[in-house]
């Protein structure tokens, strides 16, 4: 059944309201200026650090300038203060690899596209980023999906802002590849396709240099023939670096002349670009490591592994690469001889083999990072190790260990205020501060009230609106009315320019307009989106 026109309108409208909602989350303190002080009952600066009772964190221009006991730290007179005597302050969680937050995570699986970037696919008002705030994730590495050979460049973002530029933390964060059979292929086909990418690069560069040389030889001969003085040709580019292989004479070529489709690959081989390689089966780990080693980017490689890859722990450890554990933390398989089910708790294996690993919230039940960490503690990991897997470990994988992952002077002011122990199932993220901006306050989060109380505010969609039952979206008159009412309110707000205080209000309006424009432009995607879910809901 095709989605009706109303669906489009409705979904577009939803996004508008989301943009609005996202804005509402930013409280005045954040907007005041670059300073912020946080008083918390407890401060846990890092997974294994001692707890600071009655502590203070001072953030200026996004960076932490002081952490310590209330009596030791002087709060600047002009800094707005968040006073949370009951809360525990904890570093924001870091998502080392996620294919969410984009309109569609995969390009056509059969083409090599390292010159593309997820920048053009990230949707700032995607519900995923909102969920991230809610579950305390303050840094996210967005990478293309796993269905590829060599895919686009990813980027690290913070889950706030209405434009990519507001969100951007690090561009690019690395190139995504897959060592595992993409749609409709088998393991050997995939492995060969992946290797071929680099043999082709190499032949391309060889040819480039060869042609250059031939050309200059000829002109030298021409000069001889014409009796002109010869001038030797000087290097216009820079020599190729690279630990595995290099092409001699590349310095003759100005880097600008290198095909931009090949440039990112060249950067990889020169060890100037990180790589995230997906491995769905233990056998794929061998391919991933081999290709990375043979082309000199093993040191810059992170394996994104499925639980089954615990069997390749030896290879991973030997290659000294970090991993991101995607999917379930528990690997199930049937014993081929007895038919009995064997369970393996993978993080334990990785920990025991001293393999640096990060947990991922992209798992079977899409549970959040802290929950995965908690499960690790339950299954025998030291508490510190479990927490590192969602803070400092991913930070290191993203090369951001100097900026995120713990609460130290000089690092980004990404602070979570939690209602209790980070790993307790009853603990909630009360407030989130990202680089000194107070971006999330649970008491103002209409959607968490929805999640918790099911009170779905008239002007918002259900959580993950993408998945919501269209019959409820477009066939439910009351929602339509509510939405109209909401738009009406917005218009009045604009006209009057009313609001708590004028400045931020204006600002809001300005951004709100952008928000709306953006959403209209996004309509296109939502057509099929809504269509699918219409089908989806039928199954």
């Amino acid at each position: 059944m095709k989605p009706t026109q109303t669906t489009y309108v409705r979904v577009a409208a939803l996004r508008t309201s989301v943009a609005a909602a996202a804005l509402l989350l930013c409280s005045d303190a954040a907007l005041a200026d670059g300073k912020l002080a946080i008083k918390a009952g407890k401060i846990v600066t890092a997974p294994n650090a001692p707890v600071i009772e009655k502590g203070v964190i001072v953030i200026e221009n996004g960076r932490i300038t002081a952490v310590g006991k209330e009596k030791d730290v002087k709060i600047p007179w002009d800094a707005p203060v968040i006073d949370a005597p009951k809360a525990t302050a904890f570093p924001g969680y870091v998502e080392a690899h996620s294919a969410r937050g984009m309109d569609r995570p995969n390009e056509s699986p059969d083409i090599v596209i390292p010159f593309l970037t997820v920048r053009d696919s990230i949707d700032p008002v995607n519900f995923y980023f909102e969920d991230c705030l809610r579950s305390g994730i303050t840094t996210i590495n967005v990478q293309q999906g796993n269905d590829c050979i060599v895919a686009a460049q990813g980027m690290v973002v913070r889950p706030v802002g209405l434009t990519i530029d507001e969100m951007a933390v690090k561009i690019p964060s690395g190139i995504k590849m897959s060592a595992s059979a993409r749609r409709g292929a088998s393991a050997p086909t995939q492995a060969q396709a992946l290797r071929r990418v680099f043999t082709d690069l190499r032949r391309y560069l060889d040819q480039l240099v060869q042609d250059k040389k031939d050309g200059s030889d000829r002109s030298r001969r021409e000069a001889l023939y014409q009796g002109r003085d010869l001038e030797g040709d000087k290097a216009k580019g820079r020599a190729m670096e690279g630990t595995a292989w290099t092409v001699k004479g590349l310095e003759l070529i100005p880097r600008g002349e290198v095909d931009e489709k090949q440039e990112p690959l060249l950067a990889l081989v020169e060890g100037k670009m990180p790589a995230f390689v997906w491995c769905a089966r233990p056998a794929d780990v061998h391919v991933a490591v081999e290709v990375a080693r043979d082309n000199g980017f093993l040191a810059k490689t992170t394996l994104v592994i499925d639980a089954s890859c615990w069997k390749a722990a030896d290879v991973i450890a030997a290659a000294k690469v970090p991993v991101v554990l995607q999917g379930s933390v528990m690997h199930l398989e049937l014993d081929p001889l007895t038919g009995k089910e064997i369970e393996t708790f993978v993080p334990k294996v990785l920990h025991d083999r001293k393999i640096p690993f990060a947990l991922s919230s992209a798992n079977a039940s899409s549970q959040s990072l802290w929950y995965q960490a908690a499960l690790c503690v339950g299954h025998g990991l030291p508490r510190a190790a479990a927490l590192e897997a969602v803070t400092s470990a991913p930070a290191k994988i993203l090369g951001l260990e100097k900026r995120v992952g713990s609460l130290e002077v000089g690092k980004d002011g990404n602070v979570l205020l939690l209602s209790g122990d980070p790993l307790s199932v009853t603990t909630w993220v009360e407030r989130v501060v990202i680089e000194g901006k107070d971006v999330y306050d649970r008491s103002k989060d209409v959607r968490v009230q929805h999640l918790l109380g099911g009170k779905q505010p008239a002007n918002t969609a259900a959580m993950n609106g993408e998945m919501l039952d269209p019959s409820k979206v477009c066939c439910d008159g009351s929602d339509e009315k509510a939405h109209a009412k909401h738009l009406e309110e917005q218009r009045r707000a604009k006209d009057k320019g009313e609001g708590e205080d004028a400045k931020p209000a204006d600002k809001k309006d300005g951004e709100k307009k952008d928000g709306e424009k953006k959403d209209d432009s996004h309509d296109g995607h939502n057509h099929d989106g809504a269509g699918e879910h219409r089908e989806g809901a039928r199954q």
Partner: protein
Amino acid sequence: MLAIASLLVCGFAAEPAFVPVSPAIGAAAAFLNAPAADPAPGAAVPAFAADAATGDVGASGEPFVGQDPVEKGDKPAGDDPKDKEGADKDKAAKDKNGKSKDDDKDEKKDKPKPKPTPPKPKGPPLAVRADKLYVRPDRVLEGVTVLIDDGRIAAVGTDVKVPEGVRTLQAKVVTAGFIDGWSSFALDPAAFGDERISPSSTALDAVDPYVDARWEREVLRGGVTAYRVQTAPHTRIGGLGAVLRFHPGKLAQDSALSSDCSLALTLSSARGGDDVFERAADTERVLGAIADGWAYLQEKNEYKHELAAWEKAIADKQKELDDGFKKAKKDREKAQADAKDKGTEFKEKEYKEDKKPKAPRYDEDREVLARAANGELPVVVEAHSAVQIRALLESARKFKRARLVLAGGAEARRFAKELAELRIPVLLSPQPMGFYVESAISSGGLGLAAELEDAGVEVLLGSGGADGLASRDLPLLASLAVGHGLSPKAALAALTTRPARVFDIADKVGSVEIGREADLVLFDGEPFAAATKVKSVICGGDLVVEE
């Protein structure tokens, strides 16, 4: 001990039968009007070639090559009864005008870069006392001791001194480990019939290194120590096959005997349905791969000659330009001066030279096809119906260098003579199973192996790759063939020396000779007798099965 060893070696060497003759060479020679075999399809990538020097071919058994002339993956004559003196003679003759030694070097260089494998751990030394040892099917020694050190056979002899503390095993009969020439053990299920496969893709990528070790033990208990898998079975043009070991302690890739032992083509009657013409077209397309490889070889060859010519021409030109430079300079200054005086505009002389010839586009898949067409890589063609086999024979006549192997060959009977003439080995899987077809009665089935053998065709046996675990039952399949007339000697050869030679690993396994890697099976009786049990199995020098 060493003395004895070398003494034995001499014993071997003395035999006239052991004149080293490569089938590739034989074939090559027969193809007289062909351009001399080309250096390195792929030598175009110097870096690769450089790496290839450290390929496992180079690494394996080199020290012994000098000692034992039977090395170098050659066809040991007398390996099967049909090999008459005559054959040897004309082979020897061919050898003279065959390929030169440096060709062989090139061949070695062509081997694509092997996977980086950690050095094999040295197993503890072992000794085996055998009442009866099949050195190879046609060479039996009584009451000998085999000494194994560092995974290799260090000595074979009647009075070999076993060093202190070396464990010694007893056995009635000892043979080389069986090789399943046609298996699908641990193969990625998605690889079956993956038509997107490319000739350059390798079976090492298709095999799951983490297959349950107990399954490997299952197979080893039958006496099968190695298996050949094809990258993507039952695809028109498959990739490179590999020979791997059932070593329970090691990853398949780490105990590999060969990472590119064959190229596979499939002429399946399943495809094309009832449409005769479609089937014919399909056959043509598949066998066309060899022609394509040959064409590529020639393109590159032509290019080489053109380039040489051009370079020479340019070199001459360069010389004459260098010589003429002073004059040219003077002329130019003069010309410039004149122009000034006359007030005309000065023009540089126009320079001409002929264009540099363009290299054929490098294509790693065609590189593989070229190696196949050139006989550097055996081509295993799965074909069953008479039509397909006839087509196969035609292309065998057309491309004399190609080393074709017929796999399956349900209706091969009526082509026995040609197959023997063209020295095309046939890889059979004598299955007790299968859909019953009336015509099968005339196609002989289980009797086929024997009949081809009698007709002088070289028969290899494999488990057929229908089921990964079928390799376990290969010895049973072999005895089934024996039951239907195949001589036990031929059967043994079909499981050891022949696959070893056909797939170019004879320098590593297939026979119990000094320097070979130690894959041994210890029986309590003659192999292929149901009563006989496998006592112990040694795989890569490690004792992997013992009772």
